[in-house]
């Protein structure tokens, strides 16, 4: 049996047993008083009340003491022969009933007390939980405010990059060109070459900044999701890449592609990036094979793949592949800033999917990305 918590004033044994004695004494006093006024039949309930009170506030053991004390007092003062503890045989059942009844009252009182205690405990627990939740909510609100502030800061940063970094680049290339024009006859070949290198570098820096800005914009932009036909997007991506595919012998194998739920322009960018990569890295092949298709292993997921027979890459660098400005090829061999696959990954993540690749050096590469069909997970 678990111990009950009594009010702090009722903790010590002396107090608890004292309550038993006190309550029975008071009941006895009141009973004697009412008997003096010739009112009978009130003694019994008075003692029961004293027992119940004792059990309620002091527990079971003081309750038993109260029962015993009440029995003696009742016997001594209120049953014939008066003022003796003598019990006639005829009174025995009467006493047994009294004791049983008193015990029953004591038991009820204990049970009630326990129930109340449990209820109080639950109430306290609930209160604690409410407080905890309030604290958590406040913390969440604070976090969300912090995040919003950080986002604002990022926007300001992107703005400043967009405006302040582009201007000096324009100046470098602008004045270098003016210089090139004005001193063409005076400067030797070496000087000319240096000037064109400055121009190239400035141009490259400009491209990097533009790519980085576009990349950061994808992270910040809201997605507008609709049903999108991947088949149509692939066609659009192909026609967008006409310049690169012109004069090339490319054998396209485009399978039947499903529709999915997502942001049209973002998914289009994913396909343009992946397909242009496939076109780019197969440039050294006399006959290019590019296969685009989808597999459907899980009911709620679409997996698209773009497979080429290009130069591929070593799988030991596969985890670098999707990083910002990561390149696995020399810039002389294949141009590009290295933002394309990072963009692909960011968009796919925002659609609740993932992007991965399989390849072998000189044996082509296959890029996969998964999209959830319902598109409910928007990250």
């Amino acid at each position, binding site marked *: 049996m678990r111990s009950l918590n009594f009010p702090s004033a009722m903790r010590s044994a002396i107090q608890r047993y004292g309550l038993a004695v006190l309550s029975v004494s008071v009941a006895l006093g009141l009973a004697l008083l009412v008997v003096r006024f010739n009112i009978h039949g009130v003694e019994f309930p008075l003692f029961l009340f004293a027992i119940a009170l004792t059990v309620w506030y002091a527990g079971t053991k003081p309750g038993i003491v109260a029962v015993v004390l009440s029995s003696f007092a009742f016997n001594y003062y209120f049953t014939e022969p008066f003022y003796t503890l003598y019990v006639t045989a005829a009174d025995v059942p009467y006493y047994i009933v009294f004791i049983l009844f008193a015990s029953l009252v004591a038991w009820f009182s204990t049970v009630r007390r326990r129930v109340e205690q449990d209820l109080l405990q639950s109430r306290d627990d609930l209160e604690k939980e409410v407080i905890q939740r309030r604290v958590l909510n406040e913390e969440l609100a604070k976090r969300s405010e912090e995040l919003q502030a950080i986002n604002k800061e990022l926007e300001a940063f992107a703005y400043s990059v967009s405006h302040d970094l*582009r201007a000096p680049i324009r*100046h470098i*290339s602008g004045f270098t060109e003016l210089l090139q024009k004005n001193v063409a006859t005076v400067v030797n070949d070496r000087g000319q070459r240096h000037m064109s290198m400055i121009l190239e570098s400035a141009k490259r820096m400009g491209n990097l900044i533009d790519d980085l800005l576009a990349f950061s914009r994808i992270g910040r932009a809201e997605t507008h999701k609709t049903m999108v036909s991947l088949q149509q997007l692939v066609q659009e991506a192909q026609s967008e890449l006409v310049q690169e595919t012109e004069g090339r012998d490319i054998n396209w194998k485009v399978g039947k592609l499903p529709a999915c739920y997502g942001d049209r322009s973002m998914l289009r960018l994913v396909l343009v990036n992946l397909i242009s990569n496939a076109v780019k890295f197969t440039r050294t092949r006399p006959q290019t094979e590019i296969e685009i298709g989808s597999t459907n292993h899980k009911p709620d997921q679409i997996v698209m793949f773009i497979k080429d027979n290009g130069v591929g890459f070593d799988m030991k660098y596969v985890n670098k592949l999707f990083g910002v400005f990561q390149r696995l090829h020399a810039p002389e061999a294949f141009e590009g800033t290295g933002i394309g696959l990072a963009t692909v990954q960011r968009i796919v993540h925002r659609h609740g999917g993932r992007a991965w690749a399989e390849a072998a050096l000189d044996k082509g590469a296959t890029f996969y990305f998964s999209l959830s069909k319902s598109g409910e997970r928007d990250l």
Partner: protein
Amino acid sequence: MSAFGRILLVEDDPKDVELTLTALDDYKLANEVVVARDGEEALDYLYCRGKFQTRSNDNPAVLLLDLKLPKVDGLEVLQQIKSDEKFKMIPVVVLTSSHEENDMVTSYKLGVNAYVVKPVDFHEFVNAVKELGVFWALINEPPPGSIKKN
């Protein structure tokens, strides 16, 4: 600096000013340009205040406006111009480095006549500025009250 100009160029970066003037010079338009180095100066010019007190009261044929400016920024200048009966007809072309969609949307909402992002590439920049200059200062018929061609 001449107090008369058919093009008011509002640009804080002296290098951009020089590149812009170089580009406009190819069509002999550089003489027609008045440069304001911040938003306040641009408004001073329009309202003939401060150092522009003595200029004639005509409006420029076009205003080439950078957005990021000291003191009064470009969007504030634009708002001021488009809300003043006297100036709201002046064609305003925003010429900025900012690709940000917000700036573009705000500018158009305020009634800008064109929004041009300064190309990083010098050739493209020169071409853009030339075309702007030729179009707004020569081809386009400016609203009444503008400075007449010299």
